[in-house]
């Protein structure tokens, strides 16, 4: 815990860290760093959109009122940054959907993390790419080898679906001290102590649970 003399700044920091822009920044950073698609932050996106519209209106008013152009351009710069965050957040998600569309549509859990619009986008992407694959390759192959998901009809599982690599390494930071088991069940446990605020470099799979519960953030 912070000592008394630090309380003031800690309070201010915690207040600052719950502002929507900070939340959006965190959602964006997490989304960028995580190998798999994360739950859609719908409420946050809607709030950010509303705020952007509000500031846009304000800036127009400032220009009409003849306020110092320098001040206006500072507001504009701030607005540009927020807009970039929002666009980039949505864009990073779409790029992940493009990359893992077949996997996402196959896995109920992954699909439930998308917004309605993203689901529509994923289905459309998959239909387009399937058509492209069929016309370019699959229809030219012998009968038993024509599906997108399987190498051939005798494959038991879908063995041609690209999946996110959950064993990739991520840089993460813990909000509190945390003990982390680096290995999965059945293996000799190796416990890693994460100190509060210290960045660590670990396998995504190992921090996945702590990350989903919000104890850890990715950077």
């Amino acid at each position, binding site marked *: 815990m912070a000592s008394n003399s630090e309380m003031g700044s800690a309070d201010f920091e915690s207040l600052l860290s719950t502002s929507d822009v900070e939340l959006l920044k965190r959602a964006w950073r997490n989304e960028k760093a995580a190998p798999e698609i994360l739950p859609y932050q719908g409420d946050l996106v809607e709030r950010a959109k509303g705020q952007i519209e509000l500031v846009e209106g304000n800036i127009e008013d400032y220009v009409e009122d003849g306020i110092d152009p320098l001040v206006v351009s500072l507001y504009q710069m701030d607005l540009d940054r927020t807009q970039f965050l929002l666009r980039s957040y949505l864009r990073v998600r779409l790029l992940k959907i493009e990359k893992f569309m077949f996997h996402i549509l196959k896995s109920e859990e992954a699909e439930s993390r998308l917004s309605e619009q*993203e689901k529509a986008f994923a289905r459309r992407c998959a239909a387009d*790419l399937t058509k492209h*694959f069929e016309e370019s390759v699959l229809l*030219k192959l*012998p009968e038993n*080898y024509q599906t997108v998901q399987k190498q051939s009809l005798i494959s038991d599982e879908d063995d041609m679906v690209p999946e996110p690599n959950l064993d990739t390494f991520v840089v993460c930071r813990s909000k509190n001290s945390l003990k982390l088991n680096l290995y999965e069940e059945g293996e000799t446990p190796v416990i890693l102590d994460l100190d509060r605020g210290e960045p660590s470099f670990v396998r995504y799979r190992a921090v996945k649970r702590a990350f989903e519960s919000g104890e850890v953030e990715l950077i």
Partner: protein
Amino acid sequence: MYGRKGYQLVKDFASGEKGQLKPFNSKLFDETIEECEQNHHLIQSLMRKMQREGLEVPNNRNADHYGALVHHLSLIRNKRCLMAYVHNRAEIVRDLAWRVGLELPYLPPEILEKLTTLEKEYFKNHSVAITSYMGKAGLELNVDMVPPKDPYIKVRVVGDIDRGIMMNDKATNFAPHSMHFLKRTDAEPYIARGQMEELTG
């Protein structure tokens, strides 16, 4: 050697610069498809032979069984290579839609000529998918690709741009090689299409 064609096809893609397209290697591509057909014929004739001899294909591990297996493995290996080739090219095509523009005419001719008819079709379909998402989300997502540092940037006109485009309610003359100080968001589409370059430093 079976399966080599597919390998060469993938190598052909991998030897290109990352994110850049090479012309579609239809000669090698068609040869790989042809090898798949040969493999398939041989699998079938081996299986027919075993059936003629009254042997059940899955249970008799004789030379013909393994022969058919080798052809099957060669076939699926070639299939993986063919799919990887098309898949990786499709990834670049999608990237073009994001970075350069959502309409075919926006693509520079030197890129356009490297795309096959099917890839152009895919580009169009995927652009529609992106556009329809952006419409529903009420946001343009294909602008602002790099984090903004400064709301205004200095640019030089490199290509031919229709003169008298309105920007900021002012008609500007974008003569070739002229330099301008523009809003980043206004200039970005032109930079993406290679009609302007950003001057830094």
